[in-house]
């Protein structure tokens, strides 16, 4: 019985007519040609242990050199955080993942979630900087690796989000000056590449501060990313606000609510619920974009991999290194993108359309 269903499925989906059968055969043939050499290269012939690093250079044995990752994993995860203190960023990584998971869990209520996030982010800041409760102080030049990537994206979104709500409201405001300012800001930021905003933060910001005042590099980059993300998030929030029927606001007005009450209790909760899938997509884009700090020389996940490659022992293994980097980013982005696709399907059943946001 089961075999028959499989057979039916196969004939309907793979061999329904001649072009279909031809496509199937071509794909199977190409896969046959590609998959085995790839498996041989990536798994069978691969070098896994740093102790046989010399095997990586053996031209008679064409295999991937994953030993590089095994040798450098601490640097790639934690940057140059003091070795005996690396349990701190390790806890930070785990708690950030827990925070994400918790936010996607429908049982947790909104007010609880905000409280959990505030406490969580404060604890994370304490763990990273230290200096209190017997934790030694670690200056932020030593933060790095995956920890830094997660911190940049999480804190970036956490601060950009409230800002973006204000900008979105400003763009829909009836007060002309406020509307013009919001439109100008959003369109200007969205019109230029993120790199130029990062350059601006790293080169130009010091020029605009009084002599003697300086903000460190990490904070400048974080500031730039917050200002950048806010403009994109604002457009997503505005999309949500526009989807709310006018009557909702008019009803609230009729009940005698003031502007902020209408926003906080009536419009915003509905608008944000609609906007969750594109918000998640924006977050994915933002998470990927943190990798651009490689250009201004912050030690994030990608930069640490790039730097580890410059060590003489590991030069020339860029293909493996960047495959690993890609895998790392994929590991975080793919579940998020599945999550937002699921929410979209729930919101609009029967329509398999996904909105794609990207900076």
């Amino acid at each position, binding site marked *: 019985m089961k075999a028959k269903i499989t057979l039916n499925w196969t004939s309907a989906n793979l061999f329904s007519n001649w072009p279909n059968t031809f496509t199937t055969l071509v794909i199977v043939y190409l896969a046959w040609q590609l998959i085995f050499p790839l498996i041989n290269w990536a798994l069978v012939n691969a070098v896994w242990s740093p102790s046989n690093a010399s095997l990586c250079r053996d031209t008679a044995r064409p295999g991937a050199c994953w030993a590089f990752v095994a040798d450098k994993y601490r640097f790639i995860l934690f940057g140059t955080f003091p070795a005996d203190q690396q349990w701190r960023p390790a806890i930070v990584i785990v708690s950030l993942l827990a925070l994400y998971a918790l936010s996607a869990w429908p049982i947790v209520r909104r007010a609880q979630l905000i409280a959990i996030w505030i406490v969580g982010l404060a604890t994370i800041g304490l763990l990273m900087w230290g200096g209190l409760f017997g934790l030694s102080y670690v200056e932020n030049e030593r933060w790095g690796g995956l920890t830094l990537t997660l911190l940049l994206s999480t804190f970036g979104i956490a601060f950009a989000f409230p800002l973006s709500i204000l900008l979105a409201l400003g763009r829909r405001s009836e007060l002309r000056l406020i509307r013009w300012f919001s439109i100008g800001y959003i369109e200007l930021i969205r019109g230029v590449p993120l790199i130029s905003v990062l350059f601006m933060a790293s080169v130009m910001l010091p020029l605009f501060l009084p002599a003697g005042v300086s903000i460190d590099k990490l904070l400048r980059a974080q500031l730039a990313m917050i200002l950048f993300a806010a403009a994109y998030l604002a457009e997503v929030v505005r999309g949500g606000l526009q989807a709310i029927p006018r009557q909702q606001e008019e009803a609230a007005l009729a009940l005698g609510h003031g502007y902020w009450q209408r926003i906080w209790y009536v419009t915003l909760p509905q608008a944000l619920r609609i906007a969750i899938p594109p918000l998640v997509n924006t977050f994915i884009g933002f998470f990927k974009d943190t990798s651009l700090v490689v250009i201004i020389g912050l030690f994030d996940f990608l930069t640490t991999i790039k730097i580890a490659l410059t060590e003489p022992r590991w030069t020339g293994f860029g293909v493996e290194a960047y495959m690993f980097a890609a895998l790392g980013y994929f590991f975080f982005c793919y579940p998020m993108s599945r999550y937002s696709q699921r929410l979209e399907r729930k919101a609009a059943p029967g329509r398999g*359309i996904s909105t794609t946001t990207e900076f």
Partner: protein
Amino acid sequence: MPADTTGRNQSARPIFHPRHRAVVYQALLAAAVILAAWYFISNAVENLLARRIASGFGFLSREAGFEIGETALLTYSASDSYLRALAVGLFNTFRVALPAILISSLIGMALGLARLAPNWLLAKLASAYVEVMRNVPLVVQLFFWYAVITESLPAPADALSPLPGVFLSNRGFAYPTLAGQFTLALDYPALSGFGFTGGGSLSPEFAALFLGLTLYTAAFIGEIVRAGILSVDRGQFEAARSLGLSGRQVMRFVILPQALRVIVPPVTSQYLNCTKNSSLAVAIGYPDLVAIVNTTINQTGQAIEGLAIIMLVYLAISLGISSLMNWYNARIALRGAQS
């Protein structure tokens, strides 16, 4: 909104009257913006004075003094002005962004159709491609392709030659070009020393950037095409089939014209993204506009002017692409529908 619906205590406290409040809010914002601008600008003026950097665009006519790896059709040498260097950078941006837009549209169209194909394997393959591309940062992909070209391809002496006259090596790609304007004779690249001479060539930087940008953008366009086709009502498809149109004709005359109306606006923003993303060139050392401005800023300290140039140029490109696409959109829009 009628002005007196919300002001409950308006007679008691005129400051809370919505109309007055509106004036106060806007005045506050204007004051804050002006104060902040004044504060930052006065700091900048002081700092520039202290560093002896003359503000203004006078530096553009000065000698640049740096070489550019790729100048394509423009002639450029280190003794040329900054203005010329920037022009080369801008040209390089277009040189990679325009072909990337074109090719990624074609691949994206194919991907969108493949994702909806009746063949299960093909659909899954296309969707796996889209997922991988969309969930890996573009910079990582650029580094990867650059590594593939410079590390995995052989040296020019043992270059791969998939077609006669085409050579793939870790120094980039060499290909034959027409020898003269009115002839069909080809000028073939030939190995000499450590590289190829004759014919045309693409640097590894250009190749990696073009490849990465095209494959990445194609994934996003593929999703838009798929969504656009799905947005056409299924009844349209069935009606066209029952009129006796073939599958290809249904696509060409019924589905695509309707789908394009949904596809064009989001694809426009993908084209803009593609152009903006080409600025990642700086990561792998391709001299696009942003990379040249970056070098200029490092040499002259003219950070404000440099960033103003970047912003103006990208703003102009955005407006250019948008108006071109708006014109196209108006052409394919429903007749009689309000724009």
